């Protein structure tokens, strides 16, 4: 088994694991972190598939912007919820 294949298999397993956990882990903040990790793993995958353009775009847009959007939404919702609790 070559080094490349071993790395690919590891990457494949991590992709599936992080994707699965992002959907199934009970805490939402962890899920979002796992999702961003998934995006970074996708970036590595694109590099392994000889697609540097997609790797760049995935890092910037897929993991970066989407991650930022999700985290920002999460933060806003948390703040909103805390506000609502405080009112009670």
């Amino acid at each position, binding site marked *: 088994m070559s080094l490349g294949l071993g790395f690919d298999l590891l990457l494949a397993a991590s992709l599936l694991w992080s994707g699965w956990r992002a959907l199934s882990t009970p805490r939402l903040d962890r899920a979002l972190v796992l999702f961003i990790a998934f995006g970074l793993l996708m970036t590595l995958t694109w590099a392994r598939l000889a697609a*540097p*353009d997609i*790797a*760049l*775009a995935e890092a*910037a*847009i897929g993991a*970066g*912007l989407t991650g*930022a*959007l999700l985290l*920002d*939404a999460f933060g*806003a919702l948390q*703040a*909103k919820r805390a506000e609502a609790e405080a009112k009670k």
Partner: protein
Amino acid sequence: MKRPVVIPAALLFAVVLILAMVDLAPPALDLRPLVAANLASSGVAHPVTAVLLNYRAYDTLLEIGVLLLALVAILAVSESVPTTSSTSATSSDLLLPMLGRIAAPVMVVVAVYLLSAGTSAPGGAFQAGAVLAAAAVLLHLTGLLPGWRQPGVSLRWGLAGGFLLFVGVGAILLLVEGDLLRYPPDHAGVLIFLIESGLTLSLGLILAGLFLFLSHDKGDVG
């Protein structure tokens, strides 16, 4: 309730799909020689950029349309009532604004590099625009750039400008060359760079807008 149906069906589909994919014979057609053979007249040296902005430039045109459309849709959904609290991060920390002041210009330089590199190496308008957008978001997070509300006239023209430029070039080429987005080989490089420059700016604004308009909408109603 749906679970017992969906999960077995999904697993079954995945297994059949993977078995079928492993079993797949080589395709009848190979576009790679075609891509390579026409590279010289495409105006760029990087195959992916050639596909994106020349061979299949029409896809890219519509895709920028989708992005602009999504931004308009977000504006249509968001609350239009201007709220007063628009500065996001409290600037009690002195380090963050400094970081923003140093990093943002560097990111602009990186964006320009990515844009110019795109003709011959990985990179191009999307990546450059994304870096510009990231710079804007960073400035916002460090408290130097307030969240955007309903955009003013100049910002709206900036958001739509890259797309309008792309459509305009396409339309002129349709009138002059007879086909939509058919670049004359001698000028293809210049025209593509022109389109990419416009797109970088507008994409930067749109992608930043996706974040900043949403970020502004704290959902305060009533």
